[in-house]
């Protein structure tokens, strides 16, 4: 049975709930275990789906081929980018947990409408698990205490207090992050990357930035493979990372060599581009046409966003 005890000097008026120390472990370990199990399950699901997937017919465009299936694929890329980005900013402005969860629900609805790949959505969620976990673990213990806060103190350790307001704040931030992350798949995977970058370019983002993103996306894999081969080369000669100066020196050599190789490759890639007539810009990938229905879709979505904000402020 929790006991209400006198408040600390710093804690102006918060309500304090005393709990045994072992419950701290339960409160920390249980969510971590649930999270770990969730991550494992997500990884298994992703791997299973990747393994089961047959090699598609690569002679037809993978994204344009599904264009008839989803309004997101048909939506003008500029309109889509602007709408989703503005809507995402609206989500970040939410302050209450309930509207944040409503935003998650709306994002899930969008995923269904866009017929997004579940495996890819889960991968994106996995990418932010660490970020969310950090918030959920750290914020309840670190938010400044306000009057009216409910605080849990474990085993008389007054310096270690778990703020329920901090917890809900972290949960709200996490929910908003999840809601926005879920929208990234409809934003980025319903048009080929070059078309999305072309849309960004038309919206005023410098052309060179788009080209750099495109080339980085292409060559990240190549550099990763090179790094892996070099790492294997060191492993088969017995190198193991240890906490000593020799390891630091070896890693510095490794990174230096990787940089030199990458630099040489960028020079060769640039030469290859010039040799095929490159003079500063890539050819346009698609003809972008803005239709009235695109604008109507954008308007409707933004109205939903405004409604969500109004609901949030009314609570």
């Amino acid at each position, binding site marked *: 049975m929790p006991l209400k005890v006198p408040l600390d000097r710093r804690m102006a008026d918060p309500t304090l709930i005393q709990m045994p120390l072992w419950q701290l472990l339960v409160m920390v370990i249980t969510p971590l275990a649930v999270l770990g199990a969730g991550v494992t399950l997500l990884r298994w699901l992703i*791997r299973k789906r*990747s*393994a*089961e997937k047959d090699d598609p*017919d*690569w*002679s*037809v*465009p*993978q994204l344009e081929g599904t264009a008839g299936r989803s309004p997101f694929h048909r939506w003008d890329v500029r309109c889509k980018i602007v709408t989703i980005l503005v809507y995402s900013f609206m989500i970040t402005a939410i302050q209450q947990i309930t509207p944040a969860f409503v935003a998650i629900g709306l994002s899930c609805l969008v995923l269904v409408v866009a017929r997004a790949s579940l495996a890819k959505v889960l991968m994106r969620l996995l990418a932010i698990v660490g970020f969310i976990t950090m918030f959920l673990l750290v914020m309840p213990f670190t938010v400044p205490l306000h009057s009216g806060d409910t605080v849990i103190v474990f085993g008389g350790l007054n310096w270690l207090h778990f703020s329920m307001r901090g917890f809900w704040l972290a949960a709200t931030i996490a929910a908003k992050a999840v809601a926005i992350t879920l929208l990234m798949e409809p934003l980025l995977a319903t048009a*080929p*990357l*070059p078309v999305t970058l072309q849309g960004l370019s038309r919206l005023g983002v410098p052309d060179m930035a788009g080209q750099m993103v*495109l*080339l980085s*996306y*292409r*060559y990240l*894999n*190549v550099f990763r493979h*090179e790094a892996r*081969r*070099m790492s*294997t*080369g*060191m*492993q*088969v*000669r*017995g*190198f*193991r990372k240890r906490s000593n100066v*020799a390891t630091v020196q*070896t890693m510095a*050599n*490794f990174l230096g*060599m990787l940089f*030199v*190789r990458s630099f040489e*490759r960028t020079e*060769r*890639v640039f*030469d*290859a*581009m*010039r*040799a*095929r*007539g*490159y*003079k500063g810009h*890539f*050819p*346009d*990938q*698609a*003809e972008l046409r803005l239709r009235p229905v695109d604008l109507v879709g954008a308007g409707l979505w933004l109205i939903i966003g405004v409604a969500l904000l109004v609901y949030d402020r009314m609570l």
Partner: protein
Amino acid sequence: MREENSHLPPPQVKDTLFCLSSLNYRYPGGIQALSGINLEIASGERLALVGQNGSGKTTLIKQLCGLLLPADGAVRFKGEPLQGDHLDRSRLKIGLLFQDPDDQLFGHTLIDDVVFGPSNQGLSREPARQAGLLALERVHLADKAYKAPHHLSYGQKKRAALAGLLAMQPDVLLLDEPTTNLDPGQEQVFLDLLLDFTGTLVCISHDLLFLYELCQRAVVMEKGRIAHDYTMNDLVAQRSQLRAYGLDFSFRLEPATNGTDDGPSVCARQNSAPSTSPMTPPMIALGNYAFRYPDGTRALTGVDLSIATGERIALVGENGAGKSTLLACLLGLQQGRGTYLFEGQPVTRRLRRHLWRNIGMVFQDSGDQLVCPSVGEEVAFGLKQLGVSKNEIRRRMEEALSLVRLEGFEARVPLHMSGGERKRLALACVLAMSPKLLILDEPSAGLDPQGEELLLSIIAELDVTLLLVSHDMFFVNALSRRTVVMHQGAICQDLSTEAFFRDPGLGNLNGLAYTFRQRCGEAIRVLQHEHAHSHFHRHLHDHPHEHAWVAHDHLHKHNHAHRHHFLHTHPGEDEPHEHATRRYHDHYHHDGDHGAHDHDHFVPDDPSMTGESGESDSKPDNKK
């Protein structure tokens, strides 16, 4: 089936396409890469650019496509200097194929990449797309049009890079080592594609058999200069010249002896026989071994392999057959299911971490293995991990560097060494660690013939258990006694190397057939066959004669045949001579005009051309 090179019709040579005059180029670092280059390339020519690593070949083709601009002299394309607007226009008609296809495939998907060139040529979206699709169809990749380049195999990437050029319908193709790292099946496909190309072709390669099949003219480069300009037949026929320029690949043409007679010096068969005693466990024993990648790809299935101490085994198979995965498992980098015994001991998790002490591997790309700033540190790297004392490190370093003929290189920077030197350095790094099993992954890839021959002789001298992974059937034949053939993740044949080469069906099954190589090899061997030979010919010479009662000497041309003696190639001892082509050769002239020159030869069995004896007296003396 294609006709061999010497039977190909001469190229449709029209007007001069490239004209290089007094071309010099120096890199910003001060290295003089090209000096006094004078070269003309006619439209429709197929020219091989050969020379040792660092002789300036790549710099020259970069000049030809305007990626580098001459410091002195001029490069003219279609009569105009390659600069300014003309350069911009010309680049769209000159295709440059890079050695590494990843340098060239920068598009998001294949079709994006292939469309890049036609779009820059000014084609609108749909015609450019059609041109791209057509080019992909030509290279048999139409079914991969929307696939990302990093999901393709190496051979497919190479063909996709070529498609990117073909889509531009270039007048000229410049190729830098087009067949490096391709398996024989992919190599043949690539060769067919290039033979179908009707424009001008300039090809850099160390693979003279490939060049012999593809090109008619050969320009030899040495230290930034053009050393010789031959026909391809003349280049390959003159072994002494090839050797002088470090290009002699003739060792590849010598028949293997299977250890029964005094065969080529590079043959590995003099090494100790494997220990096959039933009491001695094999060094490596894999039983029903399988491996599956995390994404579900099945890479190895039911592999049974035994390697005895002292054995020399070749592991062959097409790209993607599972060879690299098998090596990773042997090295303990991957763990599959099934039995893996090393010297009779099951490879547990603990033993797996120590396998590197006993198994050494030389990678296909030595750059993957060389991370230190100096040769000395590089060789010492593995020894330090072994915990060897400093004195011992020094001793072993000197020994290993001496073994690979790199004495005195300790302070050199590996990054600045040639491909052959780097390969030997990588070998030294592994040998210094005294591995029980040495794995060589494509040791001959990217080496010039001289480098290959040296590496071959070094490996042949080693007294170590050897596992050779290679598409190079000459290395397989020269270095191994047993050949293991992999196909789709399984070992489909395990037989003696001799039996492997006797069974053409195995080669065809695994895309390892070397039909054009065998054909070219035989043709070149015939060209390199030399014997002393006398025959008649006519030419200008100085001799006393009479004109209307006046006897005098002067240079005089008349229908006069006389004998002379020289060494020349011969199509076969029992076959008639064919002297229809003009050939450069060195022989004695009455007028004292020595040196290589050409002149018309008589057809010896043509009665109208025979002299007093009426026939040529061929005297083979087996001067090979």
